[in-house]
């Protein structure tokens, strides 16, 4: 008898593990019958889970910190992917280093990791938000804005960076910002759900770990499966495949990112009314993962 679960998933390569687990029958092998609902943002996934429309969400850190600050009883059970955010600049803008960003117009996506990345990037270059013009754009609108000459640089994630380079060719270049900020993609459920269905979550995590193993073993097949699922062409996904780091884990870096993000929220006022720094030791629940693969939990606080 399979356990039934509803997964709200952001349809993109960042959800690669869940995609593989679903399409390769790995959920079933782990005793799960998962119904997948696709969204175009992790924020919607989490909202859906909070509202009771689904049981398990795949989501980036931004919605997690917002929900935690709003006092929602969420449980962060595992990280499953991370990837660096990157910057593409127009050739015309003559931006060679981070410091050249001064006085430039930078496209970012408000409320997402892109915003935190941008803040971190500017700080690392010794700049503040006042030294540049920040323009809020959805990733798919950044390219046309670059092409129209409305902005000089974009801060976003793959595949939009690759798309920009492909679509605009010589007119743009990537700025080296590696290591500045990684956006994480994670598994979040509601606390009451977790308490009621501990076995299900464990099986779910086990399935993701199996998927990770399978992906390592069959990288070519993995690209094909994911590209198919998200509607990309295989040869578009292949070049950026290595940018996605798939690893089911709970580590200090994850918590650090959550804290950085929360701090940014508090600092910038982008938080629910009356929010304080959440106690992430309550939000992050390591038991399920510990039970399935203790070596993947490397949290220093426990």
């Amino acid at each position, binding site marked *: 008898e399979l356990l039934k679960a*509803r997964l*709200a998933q952001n*349809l*993109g390569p960042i959800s690669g593990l869940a995609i593989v687990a679903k399409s390769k029958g790995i959920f079933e092998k782990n005793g799960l019958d998962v119904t997948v*609902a*696709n*969204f*175009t943002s992790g924020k*919607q996934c989490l*909202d*859906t889970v909070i*509202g*009771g*429309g*689904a049981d398990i969400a795949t989501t980036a850190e931004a919605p997690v910190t917002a929900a935690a600050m709003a006092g929602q009883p969420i449980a962060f059970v595992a990280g499953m992917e991370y990837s660096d955010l990157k910057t593409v600049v127009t050739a015309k803008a003559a931006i060679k280093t981070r410091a050249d960003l001064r006085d430039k117009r930078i496209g970012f996506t408000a409320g997402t990791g892109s915003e935190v990345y941008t803040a971190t990037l500017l700080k690392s270059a010794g700049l503040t938000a006042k030294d540049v013009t920040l323009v809020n754009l959805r*990733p*798919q609108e950044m*390219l*046309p804005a670059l*092409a129209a000459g409305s902005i000089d640089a974009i801060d976003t994630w793959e*595949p*939009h960076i690759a*798309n920009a380079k*492909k*679509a*605009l060719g010589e007119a743009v270049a990537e700025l080296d910002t590696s290591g500045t900020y990684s956006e994480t993609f994670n598994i979040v459920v509601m606390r009451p759900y977790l308490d009621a269905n501990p076995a299900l979550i464990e099986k779910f995590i086990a399935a993701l770990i199996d998927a990770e193993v399978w992906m390592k073993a069959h990288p070519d097949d993995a690209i094909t499966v994911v590209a198919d699922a*998200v*509607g*990309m062409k295989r040869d*578009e996904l292949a070049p950026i495949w290595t940018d996605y780091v798939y690893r089911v884990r709970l580590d200090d870096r994850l918590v650090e990112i959550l804290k950085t993000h929360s701090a940014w929220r508090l600092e910038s006022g982008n938080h629910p009314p009356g929010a304080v720094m959440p106690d992430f030791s309550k939000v992050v629940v390591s038991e399920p993962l510990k039970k399935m693969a203790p070596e993947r939990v490397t949290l220093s606080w426990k």
Partner: protein
Amino acid sequence: MQDGTSAPQRIAVRSSGRNRRPDSARLRRLNILVGALSLPLFVGLWELASRSGAVNMVLFPPPTVVAAAVLEWIRSGQFLVDLTASLYRVTTGFMVGGALGILFGILTGQFPVMSSLLSPLFHILRPIPPIAFVPIVILWFGLSEAGKLFLVVWGVFFTVWLSTHIGVQKVDRGLIRAALMLGTPRRQMLQEIVLLGALPYIVVGLRTAVSISFYTLVAAELAGTFAGIVYRIEIAQQNMQTGQVMGGLAALGLISFIADRLFAVLAERTVWWR
């Protein structure tokens, strides 16, 4: 009732009539020609604009590229699935929203108390873009198809309600008086006089609502879907597959065009006394 694109004045034509306006036949042929050329002309201009190099061809692909993308989409079999899903949502939502809109429009248009009670509320809710309350709809309906329908119904309902409401008040008072003097009871008054008298306005509302239903599809297919034209557009947009994006938009246009045409024909039949 005349359909959207026909000539403004209908003239009974007999083959033997010698004294039609001399140029009317020529004019009619010209119109058909112009009508047939309208879309090809537009597509041609688009191709030119796109290939001229003035804009980025990847971001603004020419019709040929779009056609290729659509063909690919159709060949994959996905198109049919998407089309069916979207069509189902639009038609069901349109019918439910339209029926409710007509019903409430007649109620508020005819009964002042109903109008006092509901009109302020409807006027306040009317402009709220469906996309802005997708989270609330998910909260209420979960990820069911009902929630998606609700979003389509939302947009259609208010459009049809408003024009029905106004239409009811524009019903020829002479006809109402005549019906009153013939002892028409209230119920029959609504269905025999008010509904038919307001029909031209209701049709305007319904035809406007055809496009509104496609607007709201964006909200409906944003969340928790697996198929649908707009859903596919959204995905293609994320992946910078602009050919498919444009193809999807063109598909929306064509579906609605056909729907509107069917609708106009239907409307013409409904207004049988013309």
